[in-house]
């Protein structure tokens, strides 16, 4: 099941600030939309369900992104790698992407 944040982003069609635009809350009985501060209408459950597949895909790709970021290493080390052998760095990055494809 996709994250509710991902479903809302898919419904809105752009990035959402979940500290200002939309406030989600769980008082112990499940997550609900406590505040909706966007111009687009607050979605119904049916509208959120309709974007479930796209949100699922978004979540899966986010996990791939995390795996890639971890494999890339920190930016300082990569700059040193580029300085010493930029082609070797390119090949390493390319392999990480191929080994961890996005949908």
């Amino acid at each position: 099941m996709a994250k509710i944040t991902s479903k809302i982003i898919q419904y809105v069609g752009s990035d959402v600030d979940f500290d200002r635009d939309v406030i989600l809350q769980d008082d112990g009985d499940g997550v609900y939309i406590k505040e909706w501060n966007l111009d687009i209408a607050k979605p119904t459950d049916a509208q959120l369900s309709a974007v479930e597949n796209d949100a699922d895909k978004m979540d899966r790709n986010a996990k791939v992104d995390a795996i890639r970021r971890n494999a890339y290493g920190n930016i300082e080390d990569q700059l040193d790698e580029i300085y010493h052998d930029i082609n070797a760095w390119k090949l390493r990055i390319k392999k990480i992407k191929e080994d961890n494809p996005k949908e």
Partner: protein
Amino acid sequence: MAYIGKTPTAVPLTSSDIAADIINSTHIGDTAISGFDALATAPASTDEFLVSDGGVLKRLDASLIGGDNTPSFFGELASDSSDQSAGARVKVTGMTANEIDTDTAFDGTTFTVPSGEAGKYFIFGMVSMSSVGGSFDGEATDGQIYVNGSSVIKARFRNNTTRDIGEDTQQVSGIINLSAGDTVELYGRFASDDYKFVAQDSAHGGTNFGGFKLIGV
């Protein structure tokens, strides 16, 4: 005192009739305030002190000195929480370990101000959160104190780089003016990965919640 003949004339006692330092505690009854007996325990609220009020010796009720910081409450999260939804402010429940609850007003989740105990309270909370969703794309965390269902104090961290957050602890505290019947709760939020609240351990810190009534304000 017995006498023979005419009854002697009564003469008032003067200070010169009494040698210096001759009267001590053995001459004074127990009902007099003498300092003869020591109080070996903390004074009850109805016990009294002697004080000089502008040079005049007076009794002072112990209840008028200092006071107790009660009601007071505290609890640590007894075990890690179930997984929580990314980005949602979630009420922390189950803070029942090492609990302090002077007025039976804290149930491990909610502190309810007892009747007759309105006033200013120092409230504090620590929310330890750990990513569980696998994307580790945390970009913001916060801890919040709620009163009657609304956020009143918030501590926040927001990461504007692409670096990930795997774990974070938010400490939130403040002085809140509370009325009898007000409810006080602790909320946490971790964005944008699913997460859990972490119980106390040496590696991760821990989640806890507490507070006490201030005196003298």
